[in-house]
């Protein structure tokens, strides 16, 4: 009886441990962060309570300097479009952002995540990995040159 219990335990460990492990790892990726961020951002934007950049919860996803600079530039009127959509025509109540399933590492600390309004990729999100944390540092659009 005891040996049966042991085998059962072994089986349980074998089957559950790797599953939990991969689930844990999947949360800690650049693409997962970008996906989470846009889900939060679009929902927040759809509430019509001012721009989500002013909500401090954005620090969970976006690098502190990037947020502060964006807030300042919005205040000064330097940016005339929504930075995270790179557009003014995005309807947060209807449209979504497609996030590519895999990020690409471009340096020791930086990965890029391709995104688009549909599966047609039109922007890249730069994600920094520092001190075990992933944070978005900027977005670059293909349609705007330079």
């Amino acid at each position: 009886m005891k040996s049966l219990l042991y085998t059962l335990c072994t089986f349980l460990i074998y089957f559950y441990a790797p599953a939990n492990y991969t689930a844990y790892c999947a949360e800690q990726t650049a693409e997962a962060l970008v996906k989470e961020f846009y889900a939060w951002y679009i929902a927040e934007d759809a509430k019509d309570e001012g721009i989500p950049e002013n909500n401090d919860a954005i620090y969970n996803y976006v690098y502190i300097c990037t947020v502060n600079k964006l807030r300042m530039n919005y205040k000064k009127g330097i940016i005339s479009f929504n930075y995270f959509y790179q557009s003014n025509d995005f309807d947060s109540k209807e449209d979504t952002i497609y996030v590519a399933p895999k990020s690409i590492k471009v340096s020791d600390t930086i990965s890029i995540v391709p995104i688009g309004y549909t599966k047609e990729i039109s922007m890249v999100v730069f994600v920094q990995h520092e001190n075990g944390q992933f944070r978005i540092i900027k977005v670059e659009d293909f349609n705007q040159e330079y």
Partner: protein
Amino acid sequence: MTKYSFWIYLLLFFLQTTICLADSRTAPKQTPEQFVRNFYQWYFEADKKSVADRNDEIFKYISPKTVEHIRSNIRGSDEYYVTKANSWTDAWTKVKIIVSKTIYMNNNVCLVPVTFNVEAEKYHVIVFVDKKNEGMRIIKIADLYPYS
């Protein structure tokens, strides 16, 4: 007939290989990596003589809009657009250009990460290459620093 068939086959074989070779030589397919490498090699070489940003050969590599932007900013910003470096020291004349694998984004645009080894320093940039118009053109060069 069977007597000659071997020679005919052999002849056909040679004909085919020569045609194939000729074909691949007349239409060399340039990869975005090669394109970006050629650009930086040209740029650093041209810059030894005079400011490469002002050289009209730059239009072979960079889109007109982006060139306009680079030239209009030439004195205003303290950053070199194509290298994203703040200073130009003699060490840059011996720069080592490392071009990484192309990252394909959509039908038109791909990104090519480039690293410049200048003595012990490393500079990373991402070159945005567009092939929408005839041939490839660089539409943007981004650094890896936060939004500013």
